[in-house]
């Protein structure tokens, strides 16, 4: 019988840090990565020498990005592993770091995501199989088609879709790490450049780069390094899956997202109603509406009502994408999943300033990667 993370040694996030997400630039990835790493070390109260292993999520930096970066902060001999899993690269880096500490292999592990906007080469182009439509492997198009169907079947309006972008851009406007930091009106989101179907540019994630880091530790490390237990956030579950054979028109990514969310609740011993904050994969506005339903935050078919009623806003029942999400905080791929952990840890510690969700105690970071793969982590402040 497989064991869950919660049944192994307790794992705590003790330090988080970020380099702001930004549009593609000449900034070296090493600078961005080390900025996030140093911030996480300071946050944790640790020196780099304490880190026993590093899990580096990246898609566009090229082979062996970790060692090239780490030799500028100290060649300590730590174990280094690079992880590419499309949008979920950073989330899987975090999962591996947690599993190492939980299993007892390490006491202090680093998950770091860092990325430049790369060549975006996808393995699907090497499958050797054409598709009838040249956009068949473009997720944006799948979701734009689904928007049209939901408009007809559930009364989802263009304004409902734009409302996701509106909320998330306004959340990001006070987030110093966000790629977009400009408040937007609903009309601006609605009237931005139309991309596909009813989706407009301010409802879609931008191209970008950046870095995020999270340090996880065992109870033993907490004691031996004299770390501040009051700032530790426990990782209760780490759950991953991928698409199954399609049934009807529901996107495989949504089915996988639902399955992973429900499993991660079980493994964490919580229900959707226990969640105070959620960071989720809103690469396109429709996804946030679909996932709030799939995650059980609201009933199926009520995602747009949940949003309209402000229940997913900061101050609502569960703050969804308080960082601004992929739409507005940004989505540099490698860092994105670790950036979600950064936001949730700050929320659960009560350190999130203008974007603080009152009395936040339990949060979930949920990510989708091309394929599709899905992964989720539940965190709790004890």
């Amino acid at each position, binding site marked *: 019988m497989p064991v869950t993370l919660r049944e192994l040694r307790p794992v705590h996030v003790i330090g988080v840090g970020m380099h702001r997400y930004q549009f593609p630039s000449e900034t070296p990835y090493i600078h961005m990565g080390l900025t996030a790493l140093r911030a996480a070390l300071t946050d944790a109260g640790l020196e780099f020498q304490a880190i026993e292993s590093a899990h580096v999520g990246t898609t566009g930096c090229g082979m062996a990005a970790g060692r090239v970066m780490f030799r500028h902060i100290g060649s300590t001999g730590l174990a280094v592993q690079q992880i590419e899993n499309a949008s979920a690269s950073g989330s899987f880096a975090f999962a591996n770091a947690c599993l190492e500490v939980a299993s007892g292999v390490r006491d202090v592990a680093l998950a770091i995501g860092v990325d430049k906007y790369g060549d975006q080469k996808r393995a699907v182009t090497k499958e050797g199989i*054409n598709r009838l439509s040249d956009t068949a492997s473009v997720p944006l*198009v799948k979701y734009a088609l689904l928007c049209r169907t939901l408009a007809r079947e559930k009364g989802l309006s263009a304004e409902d879709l734009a409302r996701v972008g509106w909320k998330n851009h306004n959340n990001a406007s006070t987030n110093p790490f966000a790629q977009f930091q400009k408040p937007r009106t609903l009309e601006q989101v609605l009237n931005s450049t139309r991309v596909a*179907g009813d989706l407009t540019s301010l409802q879609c994630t931008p191209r970008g780069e950046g870095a995020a880091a999270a340090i996880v530790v065992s109870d033993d490390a907490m004691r031996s390094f004299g770390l501040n237990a009051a700032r530790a956030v426990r990782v209760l579950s780490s759950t991953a899956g991928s698409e199954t054979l399609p049934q009807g028109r529901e996107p495989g990514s949504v089915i996988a997202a639902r399955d992973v969310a429900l499993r991660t609740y079980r493994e964490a011993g919580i229900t959707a109603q226990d969640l105070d904050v959620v960071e989720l994969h809103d690469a396109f506005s429709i996804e946030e509406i679909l996932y709030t339903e799939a995650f059980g935050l609201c009933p199926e078919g009520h995602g747009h009502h949940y949003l309209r009623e402000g229940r997913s806003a900061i101050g609502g029942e569960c703050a969804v994408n308080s960082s601004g999400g992929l739409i507005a905080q940004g989505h540099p791929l490698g860092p994105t999943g670790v950036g979600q952990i950064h936001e949730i840890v700050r929320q659960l510690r009560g350190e999130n300033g203008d974007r603080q969700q009152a009395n936040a105690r339990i949060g979930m970071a949920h990510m989708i990667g091309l394929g599709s793969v899905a992964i989720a982590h539940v965190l709790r402040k004890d």
Partner: protein
Amino acid sequence: MKLCKPDLYKLSDDGRTMLLRAARCSRCGGLSFPAANYGCPLCGAGPECCSEEALSGEARLLEFITIHGKVAPGITPPIVVGEAELAPGIIEEIELAVPEEALTLDMIVQAVPIPIERDEESVLACRFIPKGAL
């Protein structure tokens, strides 16, 4: 004129429509599209169990939109794409050769050859039009 994606389709005998190249698995009996050389995606049987089966190119249109931005290499927006059921349970994204205004949900569309320019060469692509317009 050469076909743009000959692994996916071939001209019908009269040359007016496209036949789609699907695969039938002898182990599970399932039909899959596109046909691939890797095995059956439904039951995992090896490629020796899969044989080609031509589909008529008729499909039921389930949804359609216009793409306004250049969201993929090789496309010149605006283009109209849709999701269509090519055979029971086989839903694929297709490109349509007519504007949205000419389309209705659940209409039967037909795969037809349409000349396009690709890599500085004229080739026949597979596009879909309302069957009634054939």
